[in-house]
């Protein structure tokens, strides 16, 4: 069971206090998107063995959403950050690179 730190309220808590929300940084398909683009938006998700960005909600705490950068293989948490962003901030990317030198945001 993971431990995560909510960047909104600063509380570090058990996984059961949070609800997972799947992959982060998806771009919502526009109403005039092609069938293929819309399908990908609805269903195609990354499932990496390694660094992953995901959405969490502090459901039994402050109620707010945030993002976590995490390794799906080792469960290492590189950091958590605001949900009001469309890409992982520099400090998170630096934290990942410090631990995974080969990693880059593609």
């Amino acid at each position, binding site marked *: 069971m993971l*431990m995560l730190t909510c960047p909104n309220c600063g509380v570090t808590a*058990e996984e059961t206090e949070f609800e997972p929300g799947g992959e982060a940084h998806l771009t919502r398909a526009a109403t005039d998107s092609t*069938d293929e683009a819309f399908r990908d938006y609805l269903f195609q998700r990354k499932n990496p063995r390694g660094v992953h960005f995901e959405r969490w909600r502090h*459901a039994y705490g402050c109620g*707010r*959403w945030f993002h976590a950068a995490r390794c799906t293989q080792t*469960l*290492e*948490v590189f950091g958590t950050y605001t*949900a009001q962003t469309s890409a992982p901030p520099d400090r998170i990317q630096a934290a990942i690179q410090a631990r995974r030198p080969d990693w880059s945001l593609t």
Partner: protein
Amino acid sequence: MSTRLATGGVLIDRTAPVHFTFNGQKHRAFQGDTLASALLANGHRMVGRSFKYHRPRGLVAAGVEEPNALMNLGFGDTFEPNQRATTTEVFEGLTARSQNHWPSLRFDVGAINARLSRFLPAGFYYKTFLQPRAAWKHLFEPVIRQSAGLGAAPAAEARDPDTYEHFYAYTDVLVIGGGVAGLTAARGAAGGGAQVLLIEQTAALGGRALVDGAQIDGLEGPDWVARTGAGLDQLPNLRVRTRTMGAGIYDHGYVLAYERLTDHAPGAPGPRHRLWRIRAKHIITATGAIERPLAFAGNDLPGVMLASAVRDYVGLYGVSPGDRTVLVTNNDDAYRTALTLLDAGLTVPAILDARPQVTGALPDELRARGVRVEAGRGLAKAMGTTHVTHAAVCAQAGEGAVLETIACECIAMSGGWSPAVHLWSHCGGKLTWDDAQALFRPDPARAPTGADGKPFVSTAGAASGALHATEAVEDAAKAGQTVAASLGQDGPEPALAAVNAPPEAPIKPVWLMPQGAGTELRAKAFLDFQNDVKVSDVQLAAQEGFESVEHAKRYTTLGMATDQGKLSNINGLAILSDALGQPIPQTGTTTFRPPYTPISMGGIAGEARGALFKPTRKTPIDTWLDANGAHWEPVADWRRPYAIRRQGESVASAVRREILNTRGNVGLLDASTLGKILVKGPDAAKFLDLIYTNMMSSLKPGRCRYGLMCTENGFLFDDGVVARLSEDSFLCHTTSGGSDRVHGWMEEWLQTEWWDLQVYTANLTEQFAQIAVVGPKARQVLERLGGLDVSRDALPFMGWAEGSLSQIPARVFRISFSGELSYEVAVPAGRGLEFWEKCLDAGADLGIQPYGTEALHVMRAEKGFIMIGDETDGTVTPHDLNLSWAVSKKKDDFIGKRAMERSYLNAPDRKQLVGLATLESKTVLPDGAHAVEGAKKVNGMENMIGHVTSTYYSPTLDRSIAMGLIKGGARRMGQILEFPVDKGVTIKARVVDPVFLDKEGARQDV
């Protein structure tokens, strides 16, 4: 015979006798005995029958690894099957019965299976029960069910009277295991002030130091343990819990531990078991090692025991396993057992050592004491029927020719030791094969890692593979200090305990005894005692292609019993490796999974039983309803009255009365459970246009609109009436079960997608009581309450007004879920009951009656209104439900808009909502019944074209009514569909408009 010795036994208190019964016989034991030692002390060498062959079985081990001595314990409500005698502390009045035999332990009909054993090979079930098909149901399954399981199931009416609890603990360091290594590591870890919790699964600290004879710091083992334990008690930052087993290690330092508080003292106050949910920054597993049996023929006979177990029974409990014990070993440690036996005045006729040369301090000491030590020797077999009578000696190098037989009551065997690596492995710690010691040990370079990517589990002592006491203490001291340093809390380096124990010569691995044992012997050489898996079974599995250790395990059931292969796994995979001609590390181990030993279901449940299993949400009207005949039903987390019964009334007649009264006079519904979400801000209208399929921005303040919410898939997931309170604020009603979900949904979009919108949401569901006054006389009731103009002109249908009714602040919504003239009145929750009672008073002479959820359901179905969860199941669009009018064509975007344009969601044969009128008007269709059409499909199934979603008997129309989702439903008006509901029974129903009553809506708009 086994018996109690006159002296000895460091764990028992000879001044405190206790009495227990075994199979109805009363026996005496001492405080500190386990049920196992007490049975042995009373001459019971045979304690059960094996699972498959019903072979007589005795105690093999003295601890958690014991496979055979499983007991039915207690009776009545406290009865429990499959309890290990070796981990059950004896108490006054304990009642135990042996298992898996009929009619008695000594004479067991099932023992015929042993004679049939060559017809019961590995994979027997898979091979035998394939054909004929019919035999499965009538023959095989009943027989298998009869023979399945070990102990008896508790009686169906039995209810566990004990209480259980969960306990949360946070610590810097958790040390699991209270032997010398655990004590040393804990002392080291705590030296600099770190918070340390040490748990030990048994009642006593000390582990093997109590019997292994090593001197530590000039003290005998038990004395050192007592002194060290007392020293730890003085440390304010160190807590010790005995009878607490480390059950599992999970991600990020999460640990489950299982404390048995009153198993040894039934009736004592407090919970029986406590499940500790621990978060530790670092965990040290000092779980020791488990001795391996040797695989020789007859190694499962009562009287054949692990050498360490023999040492335990003599040393810890003062129990003799028999006058004469033959020792068979491949390592030096087992010689300690011989020393213990000699010191207790018992006889060791011979030590059979499989190693070709036997040198070293311990063997020499035994030789010096006149014991015959035979090198290069093993056992051809253990002889006897219900217990050991002789040991048949052979050359380990040979095929089992018997050189001599030695009379004995006990055979003590040792195949070496395997570190207890379970906890290390639970969370991903990897193992490495140590060829010199012939064991898998934790690889410190591949430890489980935590949230920071750093290792959070270390091992100490024998659990690291440091088997010798000197190495174990060094290893544990290092582990403790390293952990303290990693936490920045290192203290002064404590003095390393000085261990005085003789050096040991290397082990020689022996996986089969003798190495050339033929078929006959291999078929009697057991690996897994509890599941009756023999060397021959594993070899057969390999021969049949089950090469992966995980496959071989499942095919043979090796290691799948309640002991989870603590004794058998390493021996089994060594045999498998040999059969496959590959080294052991290439075969690898099976996966170690928590819990380490079985834990009670009560412990897992903790306090969560009965009313505490799940909180029940109650409305402000709950007490009144409960006192006035509510027949409750759960609705999401709420309880709501299905109907409100009068004295002597059936539920069905109550529902019927409530409906007719509401349609004829006036009814009162507690609708407080409806979700109420306030959406406020300059962009509130814009936001709701995105959330709802309808246009909400065009709604005028003072007006209400029914709205639909879809997912991005275009599927309907919630509905409700939206009231515009002001230019920038809306009150969104949701379904009773959906309020939290919808609120979360709105927040998700606001926070993660449209965070530029200036909108706040608040879930006000519990702030208001909401009471629906429904029926032709509803207006009269409100007029009598007074304070607000509720006339048609002042408050038209789908309008709302704010003011006070009978001096209670109220918001009145003219909305209707029944098709009648209806006012839903929201009042502050604290005044809900008062308002409810005022309505009842005001409407008494108008015939006002409360109604429940079933009447609500029937009335909405009469009107063809959908219910989320009945007409929707997560695959249904608004268009499927004839709700296209509520899906805006003008809006650029809303959640679900793009999805609804997908070709699949516009296919003409999609299931669509229709009404269903049975041809026989009194017959009510079963809920969920399927309509079938045309020829059967190629697989023999009926061609199903849809199903019933809501179905009731309508007292208003005096006929059955139903709704269903039927393929191409809109095109089928007037068609007659067939619903086969049982063998030979088919109900016919005509496809009709789903609005059965008042299609024009005249009744609600008055």
